[in-house]
């Protein structure tokens, strides 16, 4: 009897509404279960198997993981390549976007035009961009080396030299610094109260003091968010290497995801590729957690 008092009976209308609610979210739920959760769970199971999609999986326990970590030179090579790419690229794109945002935050005439011009390059998709840069970076006919030649500098073999290839790809990724990232920085910049800058003016500080003591701390949460995201994106770099170099020369652009792709879709070693994917998840998770630990100390959240 007591139960009935604490837990009121649902009216038919409520029941009907609940049912309708579930019905409306059903497409997403079903989609998630079938195309999201099921493949995720299965990929973990397959990572413990020898499996080639068409035949029965053979359970081998941690065999794939052991081989990857203990015996596969390409695993470590691809981690090294990806890590180097990330470490060089992330600070450059963050700084580039931030500086560009500060630049277009000025209220000069025609600023909207410049904002648009800076944004346009970022709408080009990866494959097209790669094909374009393949020619920009061409050592004999490319724009870069032609310009360098005017100043008497012999241009490098951008993509054909194992020493330059990764850096060339970093350079290429700077192409889109005026994209979505810049816009978010711009929005954040416009949210900083002008009074704060006036305080610096009164104290006699210059532009550097404003940038260092007002701008950066005030938008540090946005910078932090983008740093986390960019690290994740960098770990997933694939298209450029797949289109431009196929991982060469001398495996210098064999990035983690490219190696994973070769294993999964050239060799059909789905079990091995699944293990690679789960290790990537683990690596990204650890790196992101580390970033959050550091972030706690340096990031300022206005709301708190």
């Amino acid at each position, binding site marked *: 009897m007591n139960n009935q008092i604490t837990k009121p009976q649902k009216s038919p209308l409520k029941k009907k509404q609940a049912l309708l609610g579930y019905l409306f979210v059903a497409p997403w739920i079903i989609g998630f279960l079938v195309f999201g959760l099921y493949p995720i769970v299965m990929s973990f199971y397959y990572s413990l198997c*020898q499996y*080639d*999609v*068409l*035949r*029965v999986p*053979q359970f081998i326990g941690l065999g794939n993981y052991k081989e990857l970590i203990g015996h596969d030179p390409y695993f470590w090579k691809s981690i090294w390549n990806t890590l180097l790419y990330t470490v060089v690229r992330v600070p450059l794109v963050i700084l580039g976007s931030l500086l560009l945002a500060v630049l277009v935050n000025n209220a000069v005439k025609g600023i909207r035009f410049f904002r648009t011009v800076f944004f346009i390059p970022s709408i080009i998709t990866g494959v097209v961009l790669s094909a374009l840069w*393949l020619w920009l970076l*061409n*050592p*004999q*006919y490319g724009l870069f080396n032609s310009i360098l030649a005017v100043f008497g500098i012999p241009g490098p*073999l951008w*993509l*054909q*030299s*194992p020493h330059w290839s990764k850096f060339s790809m970093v350079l290429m990724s700077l192409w889109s610094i005026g994209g979505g990232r810049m816009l978010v920085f711009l929005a954040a910049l416009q949210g900083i109260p002008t009074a704060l800058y006036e305080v610096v003016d009164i104290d006699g500080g210059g532009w550097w003091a404003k940038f260092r003591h007002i701008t950066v701390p005030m938008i540090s949460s946005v910078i932090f968010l983008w740093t986390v995201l960019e690290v994740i994106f960098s770990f997933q770099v694939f298209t450029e290497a797949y289109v*431009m*170099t*196929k*991982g*060469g*020369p*001398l*495996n210098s652009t064999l990035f983690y995801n490219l190696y994973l792709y*070769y294993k999964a*879709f*050239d*060799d*059909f*070693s789905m079990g091995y590729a699944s293990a690679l994917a789960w290790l990537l998840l683990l690596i990204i998770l650890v790196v992101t957690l580390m970033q959050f630990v550091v972030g706690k100390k340096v990031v300022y959240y206005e709301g708190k």
Partner: protein
Amino acid sequence: MRATTGNIMKILFTALLIVGIMVILFYPHGRAHQNGRRTISFWSCTGQKEEIPFIVTAFNAAQDSIRVLSNAIPWQEQEKKVLTAILSDNPPDAVSQFIPIVKWASRMALMPLDKFIERDRFDTTAIFPALWEEMRWQGHIFGIPISSASYAFYYNKKLFRQAGLDPVCPPKTWAEVVEYNQKLMRYDKSGNIIQMGFFPFYRSSLVASQNSPATATIIAWELGASFLSADGKTVTLVNPAMLRATQWILDFLKPYPIGKIEAFAAGFGYGDQQAFAAEKVAMMILPNIFPDYLRIHAPNVEYGVALTPTMPGCPIASSTGSWWIAIPRGSKDPEAAWEFIKFAASKETQLNAYTAMDQNLFPTNRLATADPVFLRDGKMQIFVTQLEHAHSSTIIPMAHDVFWREFYTAQEQVVYGNQSIEKALGTAQSIIQHELNKALTYDEYVRSKMNFFDE
């Protein structure tokens, strides 16, 4: 509560909508019989301008009992598309592909054709041997080659004349290739290479898109190389012939700094940017389809075709591969599919296909290539001879992609001077062997679980 007319209409409408969607989704679109004719589905990627392959049109016109419905599948990810269809038990009745058939046969994606071949006394000797052997796995035949590529030695007559070479005397030996190359080298004012006589260094990057087989394997085959033991279990990439062939590549490239070579090769591209079409490289091993390619992209190139050069005292060797047709596991009408395959492989069909189409792949049927109609163009005899001496480019079927990745990596290591030939090939061999061992172990396990051949 009394249901209003509006509510009834709503329910009816919803029910009709659901039924309609179900009908659209699940209606069996591939009807097995059409006007009394059995209908089978055939999937192929077509590089021709004809949307429906010639063999399909010809087969449908030639008889009344079977009708082939052709389905063109896009090039991108085509392998995965067909494999997915097979896996979901809804495959086409016949499929045309060019990837190593063993990759699919070993995955039990295809039906063995032995019983059809025996029953109908299909003339297996009519197919070029290198192409026929590609179709074999575990002693069974899994497909029939329908068209192929035959590679020969192309040379640019204009560049020969400019270099003071006789335009009707291409090099006959690899030593002569080195000599000719030295005469054909051209540099710009800054010392950059702008023209080479021959280019032997194709690696895994875009340079490999030049449609030319790896020079090292051609030379190694001439010297009698074999890259896999007879039982298919041991990789023998490090063998005297391969060591000598790689040494030839290294010696050939030695006079030119690797940076200059790389910068030169970075200018190779597609269409009229292909190295031979752009007249950047004067001699190149290219497929029989290349004259059609030149007609489209570089009609002014004046070229000759010859047999591939040889090492002293060795026979010629060439590389090849085929487009085959096979019957996927789960095909609804294998009998009809087999009739279609037999038709496509016949001498008459291959000859007709060759004369009817704009861009021609090479016939796989020797009887077709021996026909005077086919040999009208004097060059064709060269391609026939080349194909008779060809080896399949599927060298380690069970570890095909790994083989080629490692082969090119080893070549890079050697050419860059990072590793000795023995070390580079040895490393590649051990990696390929490791992958092959894994594939064989898994294969054994699968066959203990799935009894495929006795089905």
